[in-house]
């Protein structure tokens, strides 16, 4: 499929210039369409055809995420997001303090554009992104915490929680990870899942990607240590599955456990999590 890149204009911060450069390079190496945010804001019609035919990549310079917010306000379906400030941090590079693109910025833009082009033009075959062969039975019974007119469901057994509202369901040495019904309701409709890469290792309470709704950006705090072995492809293409079925079809990823049951010491069982949810709902 063709790609289109909506990027930051690059007129506020050096990171923005890199975002803009990524769009220009993608046009050169992947024949990608450039979507000008200023024009898009004036005239959605101008890009109607482009959006119908292409996967949309959004490149934000900084965490103000103007390009993402514009896309969300126009209800555009985003297939991939890049945050230059984040990529910059993980690269360990620093940018020259100028809006005119200099050599470090150019190098970073080149790396990002090439990575994007590669993943869109030649998707690696047999990427282990789907579910593992482990069977994860659905929760049989639920406990329900009520507050005002709200009801928050918690599986009665088999699930463990951290206080950051992330659940883990271990079966053997693999575990599924997702967010609780309470968090799903607090976030409202989730419109983007930024999942970690397969084979990435994570410590307990480390970061396992982020979820975005129009209300918030939520960091998925790892309830257990392990290595990412699968990401739920259905949740990536349809993030509201997390809202619809947070403990079942809305699972986010699977980890190969590296410190279970040791990690359990710092987790809550269903009863304890129910108390936590009650407390949080009363305070909110």
């Amino acid at each position, binding site marked *: 499929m063709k790609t289109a890149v909506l990027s930051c204009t690059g007129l506020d*911060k050096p990171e923005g210039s890199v975002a803009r450069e990524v769009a220009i390079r993608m046009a050169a190496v992947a024949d990608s369409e450039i979507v000008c945010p200023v024009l898009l804001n004036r005239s959605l019609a101008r890009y109607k055809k482009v959006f119908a035919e292409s996967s949309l990549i959004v490149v934000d310079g*900084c*965490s*103000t995420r103007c390009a993402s917010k514009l896309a969300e306000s126009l209800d555009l379906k985003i297939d991939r997001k890049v945050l230059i*400030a984040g990529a910059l941090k993980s690269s360990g590079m620093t940018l020259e303090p100028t809006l005119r693109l200099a050599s470090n910025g150019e190098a970073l833009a080149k790396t990002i554009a090439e990575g994007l082009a590669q993943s869109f033009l030649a998707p690696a075959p047999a990427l282990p992104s789907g579910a593992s062969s482990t069977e994860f039975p659905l929760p049989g019974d639920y406990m329900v915490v009520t507050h005002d007119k709200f009801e928050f469901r918690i599986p009665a057994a088999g699930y463990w929680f*951290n*206080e*950051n509202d992330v659940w883990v369901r271990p079966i053997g040495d693999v575990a599924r990870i997702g967010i609780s019904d309470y968090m799903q309701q607090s976030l409202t409709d989730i419109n983007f899942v930024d999942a970690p890469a397969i084979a990435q290792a994570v*410590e*307990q*309470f*480390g970061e396992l990607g*982020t979820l975005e709704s129009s209300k*918030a*950006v*939520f*960091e998925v*705090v790892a309830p257990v240590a392990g290595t990412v072995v699968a990401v739920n492809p259905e949740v990536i293409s349809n993030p509201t599955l997390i809202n619809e079925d947070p403990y079942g079809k809305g699972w986010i990823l699977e980890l190969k456990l590296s410190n279970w049951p040791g990690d359990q010491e*710092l987790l809550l069982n269903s009863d304890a999590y129910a108390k936590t949810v009650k*407390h949080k709902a009363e*305070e*909110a």
Partner: protein
Amino acid sequence: MTEATFMGVPREKIMWHPTIDYAKCTFCMECAAFCPHRVFEQREGDRRLVVANPNNCVVFCRACSKTCGPDALSFPEKQATIAAIKQIREQESVQ
């Protein structure tokens, strides 16, 4: 309000809250509008935003920093905080 705990440790014993880098902050107030836990407060004067209620901050949450364009919010190292929490838990269970 009941006393707040995190993993069984009194909240005020855990160091976890955002720190504002005033050299970078533009006082756009995105973070204050974003966080539902009343951690930030607006003030008169030069420093128009302060971390007024650090213990209201949800331990290990860093969400507001993801709304901050100038990257002016920082947090402690998670590993150090986890080690401190484990240590307090051990001390308390010994008693």
